[in-house]
């Protein structure tokens, strides 16, 4: 799976949790840039991403995730 495919799958997870598509996802996107992305929805997005990729994140990785780029890198390392 290439980076674009991963990003597009991640976007689907965001849309399904946040119920809107008014955002761009790039590597630099953080919670500040996306309406509704906060502590609770973050947990739901993480769980959605885990489901759709069939992976399980480690708490140590989640703890230091600051933007979408970090998320993509962690997904890549799990695939």
């Amino acid at each position, binding site marked *: 799976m290439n980076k674009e495919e991963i990003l597009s799958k991640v976007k689907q997870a965001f849309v399904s949790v946040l119920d809107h598509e008014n955002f761009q996802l790039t590597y630099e996107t953080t919670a500040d840039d996306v309406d509704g992305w906060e502590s609770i929805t973050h947990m739901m997005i993480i769980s959605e991403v885990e489901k759709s990729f069939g992976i399980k994140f480690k708490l140590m990785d989640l*703890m230091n995730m600051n933007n979408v780029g970090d998320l993509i890198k962690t997904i890549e390392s799990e695939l």
Partner: protein
Amino acid sequence: MKFVNKLQESIENHAAHNVLCINNVFYTYRDFAIEISKIRSAVTNVVDDSEKLIGLVTNDDIQTYASIIALWLEGKAYVPVNPTTPKERNTKVFELTETKYVIDSSESSIYEDHTVIASAALDDTDINLKPKDVSGDQLAYILFTSGTTGLPKGVPITFDNVDALVNAIDAEPEFNLTPSDRCLQMFELTFDFSVVTYLFPLLSGSCMYTIPKGAIKYFYIFKLIKEQKLTVLTMVPSIINYLRPYFPEINAPDVRYCSFGGGALHSDIAKEWSDCLPNCKIFNYYGPTEFTVYSGFYPYHKETDQKAHNGIIAIGTPQKDTLYLVVDENNKEVAIGVTGELCLGGPQITPGYWKNEERNAISFFTREENGKPIRYYKTGDLCFKDEEGDFLYVGRADFQVKIRGYRVELAEIEFHAKSKSEKKVNMVALDITNNLGNAELGLAIESEEFDTTEIFDHMKTKMPGYMVPTHVRFVKEFPHSINGKINRKELKTYFDIQ
């Protein structure tokens, strides 16, 4: 006012100790004393002595904490407002309390109709932590909780109330903070639970660790536990519900105390969490805002003390000077083992809701005990007392729910949802449990599908974010029970969010 004197002593005696860690920056008690003195000096220069209620914008910085202490030293109360809550609601709070002055550490303040004390830009001054002589029936703070009529409900707490809380916790031999403790302070200062998470560390010379706004709080808490080796955790149960999938990776031997409050603690998760904290005492606290945060606790232990009802850990016994009474609809005490409404009496009880006689007549009553009148607050929580004297939680008596620890009146959400809707249709707010076991809010609308953008935009201007429903379902016809009431339980099944 004894606790204010104790605060002075503690701040002076621990000058070189850290008081706060905010976003990886440490501040000492000396830094704290300087900020307190600067704000205090500004308050005495700017604010009329007769003005007792002062607004406080709750940013995550040393000035905001210092403002609370500065106001207390001056015998004044803080009226906190959250900077992320709609301005209209915050202004309403100031209007209800007739607050003219606002302490705000923000770079520029949006409260231009008030006299703002910009607490982050004050001149240096000599340290002065000597409290003014103030009568104990003066207010220490007013917090606003969700109200059924669309207006938030003010709960005033006096210096005597806080003194009684400090007294009760001091009398508890199982819980003693020391200057070397590192304590989690994860609460917004508009939430009453925050009072114990800043006050007890300050009284003991311990250090508090806050959660920066914008951080993913569940992971940030774990990061603090791991990297800063926190020793004292005070949390709402929803935190561990969200962390639960990662419990196998958590081992925190430094944590000595973990206190829960603000919601039902379930026994299965309490046991699993307890496995993550091998050297920790767990307390399940109970108490409403109206009774100054805590009224009592149950000391949980995964092997020896795990009393529960329907999987919810007991709330235990009342603390020093507090009385628990379980009553029926006529405010008459019920027998042991019988479920009724839990009522609380004692020195921590609020003088009554702010300018709300109607509500006060419903929520408080006085009862003669041993020839003395005792005033009780009706909590709205259903409980029973067992043979050993422990109290067990059964559920709520009304339509109030807890969302992330905050009390929410479903009626208030319905009020705001309907008030802007062009379509006059039935709307019901519901608390729905998601697959992680946490409550989320849903809005059921009795109608064909239509665009709800306007309704939601309106709700976002009227209520804090946690009160805006995250799920909407259109139902052609609401299910009803035999006696004609909307069947909320069945309505919840329309929300498939598992």
